[in-house]
């Protein structure tokens, strides 16, 4: 990406900033504050009331906050995602794959994003994107399956994995909400039909949605008088009259299902017609934004993107993956902003492991250890956390792990206002991910 495009993107980004947020602090836009650097220090200097207001523009009530998890399946090459372009050892280790300093999208004087992630730059500039370097777990396991299992269960021991961290979070939520909140959609996965282990163990399996039509009621072919037929169907299913036991509970759940379908139907009507997103990930995230906008009580959304297992000739394939990722996340943030939900949604982007520092002989990279995760959202405090990869090791080395992934998890569950004791056992340091 050339300088001009970058500049344009920066300008676009500031144009996106809704005026209400800028007005919260007289005389200063949020972007200016962040540009000036330490927002937190500024907060400390502010009168308590004003600081509170400032926080509130970025944050919704905890009960309304939503976590979107984007899983990059296959083991993303972190070093070619967040690039230590000023480090000679990076260039030496990757004679074929290293990106020259002038090509990277600079985040600082020594770190830059892969150019395919240029769409994320405005979010970085606005201070809505955190990069956590070197995330992983002790004694990295290089098996996709095992490593994903560890990320999904938040456990590194050998206990048989029957439940995932989000499944257990859902279980806790359900226990707190009581038995009759039965038809909300608190935890949802989008795209992919397989239940990720992360969501296993929930009292109600997280539904898999492929498109909005999964939540719309289709009348049988040849049914005329559509509206009347729909009404009759609803009446017959939801009326609790003289129903008891299980049937009565299902009637209540049906009632909520009809509401849910109706709200999404109304929302879809409001949606301006236009070019929809074209990639699977962007479509999944667009659907996520619709669910969030419909306020169905959704708290966690799980989305996956495949294609990161880049053992050979990865230059092009990795670039395509990252481009889809960056543009989908940018599109998603834009949608959330337009519908006024950006303050209550945070997105986590992770992969089961990073890849080796040295490229292999096939123009690819092999399974490694630590890697960067991204945390995105209006509530997020932008910047780099963790320690940049130390590339001083010998051949065949890994990006070292400096941050336990469970620290990321518990920081997110804290933000969601959900107790993490069941979902993420053990004592883990919190990261300053949120403003």
């Amino acid at each position, binding site marked *: 990406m050339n300088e001009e495009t970058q500049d344009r993107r920066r300008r676009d980004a500031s144009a996106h900033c809704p005026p209400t947020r800028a007005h919260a602090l007289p005389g200063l836009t949020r972007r200016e504050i962040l540009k000036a650097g330490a927002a937190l220090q500024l907060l400390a200097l502010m009168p308590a009331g004003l600081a509170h207001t400032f926080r509130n523009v970025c944050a919704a009530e905890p009960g309304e906050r939503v976590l979107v998890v984007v899983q990059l399946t296959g083991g993303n090459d972190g070093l070619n995602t967040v690039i230590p372009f000023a480090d000679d050892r990076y260039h030496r280790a990757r004679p074929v794959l290293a990106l020259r300093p002038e090509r990277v999208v600079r985040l600082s004087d020594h770190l830059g994003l892969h150019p395919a992630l240029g769409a994320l730059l405005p979010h970085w500039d606005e201070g809505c994107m955190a990069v956590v370097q070197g995330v992983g777990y002790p004694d990295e396991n290089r098996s996709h399956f095992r490593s994903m299992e560890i990320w999904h269960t938040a456990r590194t021991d050998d206990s048989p994995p029957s439940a995932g961290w989000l499944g257990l979070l859902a279980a806790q939520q359900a226990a707190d909400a009581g038995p009759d909140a039965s038809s909300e959609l608190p935890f949802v996965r989008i795209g992919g039909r397989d239940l990720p282990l992360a969501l296993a163990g929930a009292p109600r399996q997280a539904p898999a949605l492929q498109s909005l039509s999964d939540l719309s009621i289709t009348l049988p072919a040849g049914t005329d008088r559509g509206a009347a037929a729909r009404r009759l169907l609803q009446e017959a*299913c939801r009326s609790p009259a003289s129903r008891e036991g299980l049937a009565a509970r299902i009637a209540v759940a049906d009632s909520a299902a009809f509401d849910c379908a109706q709200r999404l139907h109304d929302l879809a009507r409001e949606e301006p017609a236009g070019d929809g997103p074209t990639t699977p990930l962007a479509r999944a995230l667009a659907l996520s934004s619709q669910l969030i906008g419909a306020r169905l009580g959704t708290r966690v959304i799980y989305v996956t993107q495949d294609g990161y297992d880049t053992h050979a000739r990865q230059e092009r394939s990795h670039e395509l993956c990252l481009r889809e990722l960056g543009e989908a996340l940018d599109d998603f943030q834009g949608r959330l902003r337009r519908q006024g939900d950006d303050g209550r949604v945070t997105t986590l982007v992770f992969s089961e492991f990073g890849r080796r520092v040295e490229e292999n002989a096939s123009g690819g990279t092999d399974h490694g250890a630590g890697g960067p995760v991204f945390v995105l959202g209006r509530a997020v405090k932008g910047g780099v956390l963790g320690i940049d990869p130390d590339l001083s090791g010998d051949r065949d080395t890994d990006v070292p792990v400096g941050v336990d992934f469970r620290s990321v998890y518990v920081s997110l569950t804290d933000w969601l206002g959900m107790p993490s004791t069941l979902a993420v056992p053990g004592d883990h340091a919190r990261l300053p991910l949120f403003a």
Partner: protein
Amino acid sequence: MSASWRTAEEALAPFRPDIDGPWDAGSASHLLRRTCFGGTRQERDQVLRWGPGAAVNELVACPPIEGAYASVLEALSPLLSAGSLELYRSVWLTRMLRDPRPMREQLALFWHGHFATSVAKVRGPHLMAAQVDLLRTLGPGRFGVLLGAVARDPAMIRWLDGNGNRARHPNENFARELLELFCLGVGHYEECDVRDAARAFSGWHEQDGRFRFNAREHDGSDKLVLGRSGPLDGDDVLAACLERPACAEHVGGRLFRHFVHAAPSPELVTLIGEHYLASGYDTLALLRELFASRAFFDAQARRSLVSSPVALAIGAARTLGLRPDTSELGTRLADLGQALYEPPSVKGWDGGLAWLNAATLIGRMNLAARFATSFAALRKPDPAPLRDGVADLGALIDLLFDGELPGGLRDRLASGDMPLTQAIHILLSLPEAQLS
């Protein structure tokens, strides 16, 4: 009514028509739903004529496959050598739809949830299909024989890390689930039992899709599992499990909760365990006893189970005489939360109300719409419409709900001249239709 069975013995005693309750169309449909997913009007009338004793003997049997159904399977067999997951799903659903005595498929589905293994980790759909073949063949027989085969099943070994269980590095995954989920239940074993049981199974490996006992990786030293000691191997551990009454109660109780109702008293579970153990774990014999019992025909049991997506779809299709596209159905059922060969975890599907949420309820209604359209397109739908495609709602309600719908609903639906498709769509979407 249930209160009248003061003791577990009384609840498990055979149901006597007209003394314990009426033997009517509702009872016949109840039996058909639980043993055969559901049945047509003709099948219901046949069951009614048989009477409860003969009907249970007839339906709770897994007779050799012959006749037209054998030809169906024969026609499918060339597809099965190296199929895709979608194909295996489609073929299994075809079996459920077409088997004239689908008890064996009901049982295979039950065991698939009990020994829940997922293609997600096993990676070979053919290995999963082979495992379910094993469940289908051995499922009706003695539980001990089934258990021995499952412990050697290549898909199970991959699923619970059997190849990682080596003499010097035991892996407890299989041993733990064996004790906790497959046989005994929490509270009936100690951690040390798990540890030593794992060592007993060391060397039970899988290679190229076959079981292989790897003697070099088997730990032949002394162990102590559930009170048995010596240089135990895997079969000794299985025997130790099977002789525990807790095992018969755990598995027998699970069969009861799956096929009869969800809340048996502890005394009833104990009694079921005694009978199961005394029969040498003869599963079909236990099922005959359960299906013929007063507890089964009790009001407490009727419409007391939330149908799984598979049971819902196959039940509706069998009741209405539909032949849905099983390939598409397999995917739909996965979206509804029941991906065959791919249960969510080793605990299987949670079942009950856990099947239902806004998305799956809407999905169930949309499946009902699909079935309604198919029914209207049948050449000879039964029940036949009254005229011009307007439904004989009374006959439909009788067939699907034994005539019982909550107050007013029957009248409200029957008041208009409702087209057949619309009527079927509504009836199959009702909360009552989600219950078996």
